[in-house]
């Protein structure tokens, strides 16, 4: 059976979300680089995979998928086993909680942390521009409020969807891996003991360590 293929640069945090799922389930996969600097993501070949011209795209035989959270669900469902079931699809209530906290990641967490990541990391390093401190400040406040909710939640349950690890937790890893090192962001996690412990438990997972080791070091 041919391995699945992931089309994206190593830097892509969305691609890392998929790689984490593949590593957690132990699936064989190939990576194909998409060179953003030369506009390869807007090439006809890539637009045929992802009409929005974004990364990642994913291929499994004849099937082509895009949107990392959709690809992640596909991978976790296809390669689900009695040992690894990160969607908890066989329990209506548990899977509902996974879906709630996956939405929280997309709608609350990412909307606060991504602008910070973009201003602190992407603008200076990729666009050689100047960060907008006002945007950073506003989003740090937003992130703090989101993390207050997480702190309260994680003092009730070990992980976000319940006392079980799930895709909801894993989905937070890619961008947080970088952002938690920013001097503006680190204290937000340090100050919240349950959030801090939850992050440490994510970092200590074998699949996460394996993926983290391959991510670029950034200044």
């Amino acid at each position: 059976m041919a391995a699945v293929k992931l089309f994206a640069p190593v830097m892509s945090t969305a691609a890392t979300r998929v790689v984490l799922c593949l590593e957690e389930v132990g699936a064989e996969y190939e990576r194909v680089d998409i060179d953003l600097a030369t506009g390869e993501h807007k090439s006809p070949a890539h637009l045929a995979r992802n009409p929005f011209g974004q990364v990642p795209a994913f291929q499994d035989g004849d099937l082509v998928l895009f949107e990392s959270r959709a690809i992640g669900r596909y991978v976790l469902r296809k390669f689900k086993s009695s040992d690894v079931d990160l969607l908890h699809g066989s329990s209506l209530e548990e899977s509902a909680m996974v879906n709630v906290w996956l939405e929280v990641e997309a709608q609350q967490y990412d909307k606060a942390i991504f602008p910070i990541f973009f201003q602190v990391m992407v603008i200076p390093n990729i666009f050689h521009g100047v960060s907008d401190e006002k945007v950073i400040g506003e989003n740090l406040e937003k992130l703090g409020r989101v993390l207050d909710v997480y702190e309260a939640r994680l003092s009730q349950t070990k992980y976000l969807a319940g006392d079980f690890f799930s895709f909801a937790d894993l989905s937070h890893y890619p961008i947080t891996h970088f952002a938690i090192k920013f001097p503006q962001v680190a204290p937000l996690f340090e100050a919240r003991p349950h959030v801090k412990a939850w992050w440490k438990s994510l970092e200590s997972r074998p699949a996460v360590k394996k993926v983290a080791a391959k991510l670029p070091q950034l200044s």
Partner: protein
Amino acid sequence: MGGIKIYGMPTSTNTIRALAALNEKGLDYELVIVDLRTGAHKHPNFLALNPFGQIPVLEDGDVVLFESRAINRYIATKYAEAGPDLLLSGGTPAERAAVEIWLEVESQQFGPPIASLVFEALIKPMLVKATADEAIVEAQAAKLEKVLDVYEARLAQNKYLAGEHFTLVDLNHIPYTNYLLKTSKAALVTSRPHLLAWWKDVSARPAWVKTAAGIPF
């Protein structure tokens, strides 16, 4: 057995999203009003249901859920046998993958610009009586144009967004599209023939007609 409750407001797009799903399934429910204008969403009783202080919340027996897209997945899963199979649970892996992809497209590509545009052009003037910031409306409309070009191409090849069948994907798009058509930017939809045909089809569904009748403007 307690009935299904939705906590929200009849004008709130995300509340409407959940009501639309319940109506597609032919389910009875009670709408418990949480009026954002009075700050009811920040009251401790409500924060106990949704710690993010947002509407809607669904209560179905002991199950309490927030985030309208998660609520809709739950409704589509628990009540899969009632009405249309909104998540194509009986479909092929390819069909289910298409549903997952386009659910995310709604959430990641369509949702942010249309929510911003609708808030600025319709909600803000109506609910808080402030004038729309036209620069924001134009900027969000420009983003939405690019997204809707992809939708137009998609719907030229497929009757519905996930393929041949009406699914949760289409449903999740209805409430914001409905409001967009009440703004100065309705042409974003009406100028795109396949998108307009899709809209005429999905908005004619009896469940949507029932849901729309409950929207006070």
